[in-house]
């Protein structure tokens, strides 16, 4: 069966142990969580969890049903195949050599990266884009000497207001 990256958005009660139960569902069914983002919503009693996992097409059905069974889960939405805006934040620490300087600066401009700190030979970039694009940008910069990289994993919202 075709394996693809799934992005799941959960609304959950903001309580101790909830994340652990969700992680337990994934591990007990043999799925790996590739990225995970948790934050409070506008209602402090409710958190939103956005996570991604690579899996076959059965995945959504199986995992969604298992997650729905957890008492502290309010809703489970698979955003993989629905129109949505997906973004992740990536920070890169990049070594600059004289011979690469011009090409790097051009790429920063082209990719619309934000420079958050800069030394003579080192620079830190902030990139906000969808996951495919952050991956492409990382691939581009890697040959120049990426010293450090950290990324948040994807977050997402529907392109249309929910329910429309």
């Amino acid at each position, binding site marked *: 069966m075709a394996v693809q990256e799934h992005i799941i958005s959960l609304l959950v009660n903001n309580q101790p142990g909830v994340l652990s139960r969700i992680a*337990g569902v994934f591990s007990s069914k043999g799925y790996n969580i590739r990225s995970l983002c948790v934050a409070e919503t506008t209602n402090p009693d409710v958190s939103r969890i956005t996570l991604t996992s690579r899996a076959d097409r059965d995945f959504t059905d199986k995992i969604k049903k298992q997650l729905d069974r957890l008492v502290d889960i309010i809703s489970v939405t698979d955003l993989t195949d629905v129109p949505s805006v997906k973004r992740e934040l990536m920070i890169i620490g990049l070594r600059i050599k004289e011979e690469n300087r011009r090409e790097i600066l051009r790429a920063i401009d082209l990719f619309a990266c934000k420079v958050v700190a800069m030394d003579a030979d080192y620079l830190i970039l902030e990139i906000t884009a969808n996951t495919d694009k952050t991956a492409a940008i990382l691939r581009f910069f890697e040959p120049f000497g990426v010293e450090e990289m950290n990324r948040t994993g994807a977050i997402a919202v529907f392109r249309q207001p929910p329910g429309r």
Partner: protein
Amino acid sequence: MRTIGADIVLQVLEEEGVDAIFGYPGANTLPLNDRLAGSRIRHYLMRHEQAAAHAADGYARITGKTGVCLATSGPGATNLVTGIATAYMDSTPLVAITAQVNSDLWGRDAFQETDIIGVTMPITKHSFMVRDPNQLASSLRRAFHLARSGRPGPVLLDIPRDILGPLSDVKPQELPNGQSIPRKEGEAIVRIAEALNRSERPVILLGGGVKLGEACELATAFVEKTGIPFVSTMMGIGTITSGNDFDLGFIGTHGNQLANSIIHQSDFILALGSRFTERSTSVISKFAPLALVAQIDIDPTSIGKNIKADFQWVGDIKEALAALAGLVIPRDRPQWAARINEERAQATNKGGNDGCGEAGTLIRKIQTALPKDAIVVPDVGLNQIWTVRSWQCHTPRSLITTGGMGTMGFSLPAAIGVKIGAPEREVISISGDGGFLMNIQELATISSYCLPVKIVVLNNGHLGMIRQMQDLFFESRFTTCALGGEVDLVAIAGGFGIPAERIPVHGDPEAAIARMKETKGPYLVEAVIEQDAYVYPIIPPGKSNVEMISGK
């Protein structure tokens, strides 16, 4: 006397209709044990917390109510784990209450502290700690609601000792809403009925969910109205009275050849309350290759879990059966009926589906001697298979067994809970010598409450099923399966104050059965059986349901 947290716990238990709980005290449960004296609820002091969980499980299975067990923090709580997991696998409604160390000690590795919420997460429907005394009553009500709603199961409530003690200004709380009931899809049931009407070789598969959903009478009426033959899983045995004309037996590894063969040839399976575990289906890719599968279950996660469901309906089995009864058209399927009759005749000619040898004869003789509504509680191993294949279920709740978890040591403590839940019925525990030793301490509970539980131990000095598998599948290399014959079970029973006797190998059991029956209180019969008395036919690992073997 000032109201303390323990009073609130007992008050909610009474509201929930609990009349018996099973437990073992510890320092942190003491406020609760102290207030039990003034309560209508009877606390049964078991001799191990695992047994308390099994007893509560047995009580729930026989009464249909929610079982309650109580243990202290730390080792008391962890000892419950096997019992909770057993209830989880067979969907028994159970509320496990554990006392926790004082709130101010929590998280400090205090004496007898353990994170029982974390430990039980994968084996409970839900587990939670009461952190605020104002939520004690509502949390407990919620635990009962969750244990019973949808697909039933165990819920664990962890209560710190201080919250069981004196409280200040506790406000009464109303019942919060739990999980919503799964929605019903009317069209889906119509499609299932249409497919069933079109089918030429239909069969009904009864899982444990039919009994849990109190749908046995509807299932019987449905079978009799439509004339569609049925098979069951081990947990489904007894849903419809044994010996029903349409009964083909139970499927799976240790099931009946007829049932396995017929479901294999079927073109439509109407599955009611079954998750199609591998014990029932064997190799799933070879299971019923020609059949369309319609799965009806209250638990959406059970649908499609192990088998592809061509049709599905999530909801109450009673509603599904009521709807189907109006939509399914009874009609003759002469070729299918002829096929089934032919195979049934072959099976009968070969000595039926027995394969249980002397043990099976013994079990049948015991049942014959007892009233029709007697309840049997087998343990796990050969004894379980011999029992489920030999016992005739005259009522849905006359066979109490651990099908999903297969917990050795279940029988004796579960039989205690069953007897307390159904004091007017005869209860018989059947174990092998291995499982019997696993919770043998419960003889003390039986003895001290003078519970008239009848106990049969089939003693072959071995872990018989292990021995059979080593004989068949490991070239008769017997390791780690001999328990030895030096344990004197009759003397042990005597030591616990329980009269007992031994039936020698090949001995006539009639007199012993008569004495067991006549004895007012508990009685133990040790039946010595041969070490190579096995159970046949059996499906070897990796084989399909139609590749049963009848010997080496």
